């Protein structure tokens, strides 16, 4: 498509930049409507220069096609005709085509599809940028907020992820980063119609929450997962100011509250009927105003999901259920009575409440469960698709009467206290099970361990449709894993954690190589976590068969750098690799040089890396940010690298790194 010659003479400098089509399209901020061509092209020049060495802009999204940015062979010319007033952006030669394109692109929702569309040509890039409603950024440091804001004109929803996942296990020191503040500051002015923000592993302060509440008058959904930095004060501001709030989901956050400073945030919701559909706050561990919650539930006719914290007794649950019989997802708090023994609510009365909640499909909570009350949920068991007992220390005997009714269960989270016997009961009933997670009550290496290969085998035989499993145990065999690989062909997520380090097959004494080999060979895994005694052979299998693996977690495994090489060379779809305590050195690290741009990040801690190797990587790969993280600021200069976190980035080394982080 040839464009008429622009009336501005400033087109010349743009031709000087290399013909990488998508990059230089950050010519003009979409917000400006009457910018004169010359001033816009000045900013365009800056952007074009900056973009020279950048990777394709589609890397802002989760599913990077990995390919380069060049589009076709047509020589492009920047379209510098001034904006026609109201539109606020450059008018393309064919206005009708662009409008049609935008209308069509509205229907594209998947980020992968949108990324592909944006690479077709400039016109499609622009149209896609205007019509993208949800922005997903898998690593908040991969791109600067300003850049996202400049590209996308009409965002309604932003999803941001911050710290690397190993931060959940205390491997990332406090103060590392992932602050949401610069994002909120940039999104506020740019997207007044923003409705939804989802954050994972980011630090969110009360001020940030206040800024969100004040910046977006139409705000509807806030979801914070594994975040920290805020308190009930911030929640109060959200409750009070976001009058159209539909979703407030706080999931496994660290909500800081000094007991004497906590705020009665539940009372701050609007006094009229609210639009609340989901209120999840089981991680807000401080006591709250129950009467206010009861009243809130009563005036929230759209409420479908409610998860309360452990300060709620069964008596209070009953009151809540009476107010909200339409609930579909219910987090049940402590699930015990606050009265003296013999004096509290009877099981029958509680069962009546559950029977009246005809829409319940998901139950969780049971944080301090009194097993005598479990029969109260029998009336809803048959309809349940999701049951989370992972905070309830139940025995097999206590589980069986419940689980035998749960014929439609698709998701089940449980503690290993139920043992292999309990898992057998699950396998006997839940033939439709898709996701199973078995957590350890005693999360230590030397624990007894109540589940083993026997339970895994039973599950594999009874739950043939299994797609995702997370299994903590102390004893495992290759045979059980192989059995699962054959019985459960739909498996895409396999996360096995044998808690004792370097444990071999408990029967044969051999490494667990064959088991994991079978699982990658027979199943189309996208996510894999390995454990137990593993040699390079396991990773040879993983590299050979794990062509769909996107996330791989390795701990205390492998015996040489060949393992890393197998992974990098074999796992062509690898996005996220996290490694700890494995004998991999600089050589292994460098074998990944050609692959790092295709990945979101690499994390390695307690391996055998040195500064020299990491600097090598940093020098050779300009668009990677290479972080060496120390535990304490005052640790002296050391050649040994304990923690390495490297990730591709359009934004370059970040400016907010603390002193214990060295950016190479």
């Amino acid at each position: 498509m040839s464009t008429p010659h622009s009336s501005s003479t400033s087109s010349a400098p743009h031709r000087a930049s290399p013909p990488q089509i998508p990059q230089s399209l950050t010519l003009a901020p979409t917000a400006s409507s009457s910018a004169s061509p010359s001033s816009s092209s000045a900013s365009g020049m800056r952007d074009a220069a900056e973009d020279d060495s950048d990777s394709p802009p589609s890397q802002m999204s989760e599913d990077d096609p990995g390919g380069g940015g060049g589009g076709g062979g047509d020589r492009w010319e920047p379209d510098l005709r001034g904006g026609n007033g109201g539109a606020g952006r450059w008018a393309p030669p064919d206005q009708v085509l662009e409008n049609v394109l935008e209308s069509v692109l509205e229907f594209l929702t998947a980020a992968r599809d949108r990324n592909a569309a944006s690479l077709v040509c400039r016109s499609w890039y622009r149209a896609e940028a205007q019509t993208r409603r949800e922005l997903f950024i898998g690593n908040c440091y991969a791109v600067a907020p300003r850049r996202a804001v400049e590209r996308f004109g009409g965002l309604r929803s932003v999803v941001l992820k911050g710290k690397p996942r190993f931060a959940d296990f205390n491997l990332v020191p406090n103060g590392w980063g992932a602050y949401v503040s610069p994002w909120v500051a940039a999104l506020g002015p740019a997207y007044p119609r923003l409705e939804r923000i989802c954050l994972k592993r980011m630090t969110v302060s009360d001020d940030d929450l206040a800024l969100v509440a004040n910046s977006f008058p139409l705000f509807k959904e806030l979801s914070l997962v594994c975040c920290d930095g805020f308190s009930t004060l911030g929640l109060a501001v959200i409750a009070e100011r976001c009058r159209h709030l539909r979703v407030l989901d706080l999931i496994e956050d660290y909500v800081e509250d000094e007991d004497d400073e906590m705020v009665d945030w539940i009372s701050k919701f609007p006094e009229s009927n609210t639009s609340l559909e989901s209120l999840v706050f089981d991680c807000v561990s401080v006591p709250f105003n129950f009467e206010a919650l009861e009243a809130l539930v009563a005036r929230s006719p759209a409420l479908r999901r409610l998860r309360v914290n452990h300060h709620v007794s069964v008596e209070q649950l009953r009151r809540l259920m009476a107010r909200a019989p339409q609930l579909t997802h219910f987090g049940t708090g402590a699930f015990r009575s606050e009265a003296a023994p013999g004096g509290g609510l009877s099981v029958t009365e509680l069962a009546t409440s559950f029977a009246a909640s005809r829409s319940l499909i998901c139950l969780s909570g049971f944080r301090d469960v009194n097993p005598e009350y479990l029969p109260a949920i029998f009336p809803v068991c048959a309809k349940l698709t999701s049951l989370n007992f992972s905070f309830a220390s139940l025995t097999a005997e206590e589980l069986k009467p419940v689980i035998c009714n749960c014929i439609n269960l698709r998701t089940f989270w449980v503690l290993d206290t139920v043992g292999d016997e309990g898992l057998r009961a699950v396998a006997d009933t839940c033939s439709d099970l898709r996701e199973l997670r078995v957590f350890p009550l005693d999360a230590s290496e030397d624990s007894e361990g109540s589940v083993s290969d026997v339970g895994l085998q039973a599950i594999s035989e009874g739950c043939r449709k299994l797609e995702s499993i997370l299994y903590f145990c102390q004893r495992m065999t290759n045979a059980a894993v192989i059995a699962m690989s054959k019985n459960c062909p739909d498996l895409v997520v396999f996360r096995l954690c044998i808690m004792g380090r370097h444990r071999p097959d408990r029967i044969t004494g051999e490494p667990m190589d064959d088991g994991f080999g079978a699982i990658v060979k027979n199943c189309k895994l996208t996510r894999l976590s390995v454990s137990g005694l593993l040699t390079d052979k396991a990773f040879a299998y993983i590299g050979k068969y794990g062509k769909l693996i996107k996330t791989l977690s390795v701990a205390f495994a492998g015996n040489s750098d060949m393992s890393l090489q197998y992974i990098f060379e074999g796992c062509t779809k690898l996005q996220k690799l996290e490694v700890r305590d494995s004998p991999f050195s600089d050589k292994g690290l460098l074998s990944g040089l050609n692959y790092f741009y295709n990945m979101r990040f690499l994390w390695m801690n307690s391996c055998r890396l040195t500064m020299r190797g990491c600097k090598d990587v940093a020098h050779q790969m300009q668009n990677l940010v290479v972080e060496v993280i120390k535990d304490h600021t005052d640790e002296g200069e050391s050649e040994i690298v304990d923690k390495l976190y490297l990730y591709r980035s359009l934004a370059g080394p970040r400016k907010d790194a603390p002193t214990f982080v060295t950016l190479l």
Partner: protein
Amino acid sequence: MEVAAAAANYVADVDNNCLKATELRLGLPGTEETTAVLPTPPSTPRGKKREGNSGAEEAAKKRDGETAPPAAKAQVVGWPPVRSYRKSCFQQSSGAKSKPAPAEEKAPAPAAPSAAAAGGNALFVKVSMDGAPYLRKIDLKMYKGYRELREALEAMFLCFSGGADAPAVNPSDFAVTYEDKDGDLMLVGDVPFDMFISTCKRLRIMKGSEARGLGSVKNN
């Protein structure tokens, strides 16, 4: 295989050993835990006010909070990979509906005592009494309320209350105070017991002129 990890642990050990060396403690040598002290401060902040010294505090809490004998082998940070949130919930559920001690809530992987739901970790704090030649340690979780706590303290420190010829302890001459997590000296008894347990770092029994007017031990 774990050279780097061992190196990191060693550095942390040296740090904590230096701190330990300067601390006055009661107890026979060798009764303290000698597990590799976790080198990493928790990745989650434990309070706006305390971000700066979370590392040292964490080590201090660990010393005060655990009396387990030395573990057989060094426990490793963050292994098994169970989120601290989940581990802390089990410590919560042992205390019914009370807010749990923040030290355990945000602590990294526990080195020695298992996070069993039933028992919960012990919460040992030092108790000093003005004029007494040595300190004691008590487990706050052993007591259900202030009364029991006071009775235990009285029993413990009776012998120091004024010499062999002194009659029974006169309550009004003593004030039991505690140091909270901000480092402030507070009078015991103002806040609900559960809240007190979660914020108390050490106890101090004041007597004599300092105590007068602060309220008797048996107050409230």
